[in-house]
């Protein structure tokens, strides 16, 4: 799923400081699961904004709504009535959501309330990690099912580098496991260490963001 982190309240307050009426829009998708943009977080952010503005002597009217998903135009429609009299929307979906809102309301200001950080998952309660960079051509089977493009700081396909020490990456002050140690261990378990003697040549990055905006088309589903 898409992982995000809440923007600091002060940053959001600064962005809406001249506004009187806003809508805080959440999403029931990924950001609900990673606890930054669901119904609960919409209510918390709306309250924080109201309290802060009241304390500052400039009240802010905040309406709340959580879309089924913000990455689907049909679920944005539900905001039509709410935004009719609003100065802006603060979307706390991943950064896809605010762009869908922009597409539907060309004259409405839209602010992101979340920093979208990665494609990943939960590793323990309250901790989410990155697992994929969406390179568009998955090759993790060459690496025991682990992704060095995402999980090696240098994106080595011929690792590990000289900065791998006692299972840890030199980047991150001992907080990040060396993915190449994990790849090594995994291939050893599978009896496939010979795979690591193969020289990986330059990857074709044209399927990645580098090739320009990506569009996936499924002709059989198009109407």
């Amino acid at each position, binding site marked *: 799923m898409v992982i995000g982190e809440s923007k600091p309240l002060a940053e959001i307050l600064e962005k809406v400081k001249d506004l009187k009426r806003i809508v805080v829009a959440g999403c029931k998708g990924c950001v609900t699961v990673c606890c930054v943009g669901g119904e609960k977080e919409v209510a918390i952010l709306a309250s924080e904004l109201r309290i802060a503005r009241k304390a500052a002597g400039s009240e802010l009217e905040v309406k709340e709504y959580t879309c089924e998903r913000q990455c689907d135009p049909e679920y944005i429609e539900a905001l039509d009535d709410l935004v009719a009299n609003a100065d802006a929307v603060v979307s706390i979906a991943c950064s896809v959501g605010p762009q869908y809102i922009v597409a539907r309301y060309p004259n409405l200001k839209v602010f992101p309330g979340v920093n979208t950080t990665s494609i990943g998952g939960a590793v323990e309660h309250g901790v989410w990690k990155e697992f994929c960079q969406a390179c568009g051509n998955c090759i993790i089977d060459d690496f025991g099912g682990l992704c060095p493009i995402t999980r090696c*700081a*240098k*994106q*080595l*396909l*011929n*690792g*590990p*580098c*000289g*900065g*791998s*020490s*006692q*299972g840890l990456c*030199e*980047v991150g002050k001992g907080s990040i496991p*060396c993915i190449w*140690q994990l790849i*090594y261990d995994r291939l050893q378990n599978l009896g496939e260490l010979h795979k*690591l*003697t193969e*020289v*990986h*040549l*330059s990857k074709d*990055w044209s399927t990645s963001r580098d090739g320009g905006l990506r569009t996936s088309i499924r002709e059989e589903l198009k109407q």
Partner: protein
Amino acid sequence: MTAEYAAGSKLEKIFKSGQKAVTGECGPPRGADAEHFRHKANYLKNVVDAVNVTDNQTAVVRFCSMAASKILLEMGIEPVMQMVTRDMNRIGLQSNVLGAAALGIKNLLCLTGDHQSFGDHPQAKNVHDMDSVMLLHTVKTMRDEGKLVSGTELQGRPRMFLGAAANPFADPQEFRVVRMGKKIAAGAQFIQTQCIYNMERFRKFMEAANDMGLTEKTFIMAGITPLKSVGMANYMKKFVPGLDVPDHYITRLKGVPKDKVAAEGIKIAVEQIHECLALKGVSGIHLMAIEWEDHVPEIVEAAGLLPRPKVEAD
């Protein structure tokens, strides 16, 4: 003669003549002060066979390795131009290889480079379109087949003697020599190792390299960095990943009067040079006297490695 040498550099010729080679290192400054660079490099002239020029080492901005290499050529010093894949994509890297060859640079050390989080621009975007192994293969293909990564034919091939780094002290320990083998398979003709302090581990690394037949395919240079002070030794031990400085060296440095520590450090370096050269498969010494270039002549002399062979590059 051309046919038997990949590039015909002095370094390549010395290796292929069966003599032990000695390389030094000279880091370009953090500024455009070429005089400072020339001053440091001058200590290395005729004392080592070639001088590595670092490419924004530790991800700190310095003047570029190609310009510094050209300055060395003008001084009559053979450069080993270092090139990291952190800062340029395949377009920039290949372009610089061609430019370097056009300037007469004949030795190229292909590296991935330190992560930018260690340098002076941790906010930078890194590139890593390629890694060191891919760069080796790329330049080898440019040189031997006259083709770019894209398959485009080159008009004029870059004659480069290709080198790579190896760290025998990082983990997983048993994989380090295998990874060096990958670099050799990809095109590395010589290897310069990380600074060696743990001789036992280096000995095992060399035994494995010999067993795998790697020392017959490449020239391995043992990396030596003299310990200037107790503080430096402690820093290396504690903060440089994969570098273990055994306590007995630190005890030795601590055991001499303060004004004799540098001399003791040099004595240790000379001993290490002899130990390394005695190992089967070690073809030379890469002396990285970091900001201590003025002591290199003394170290090379004390190690009995002077005078250097008189060899002309093509």
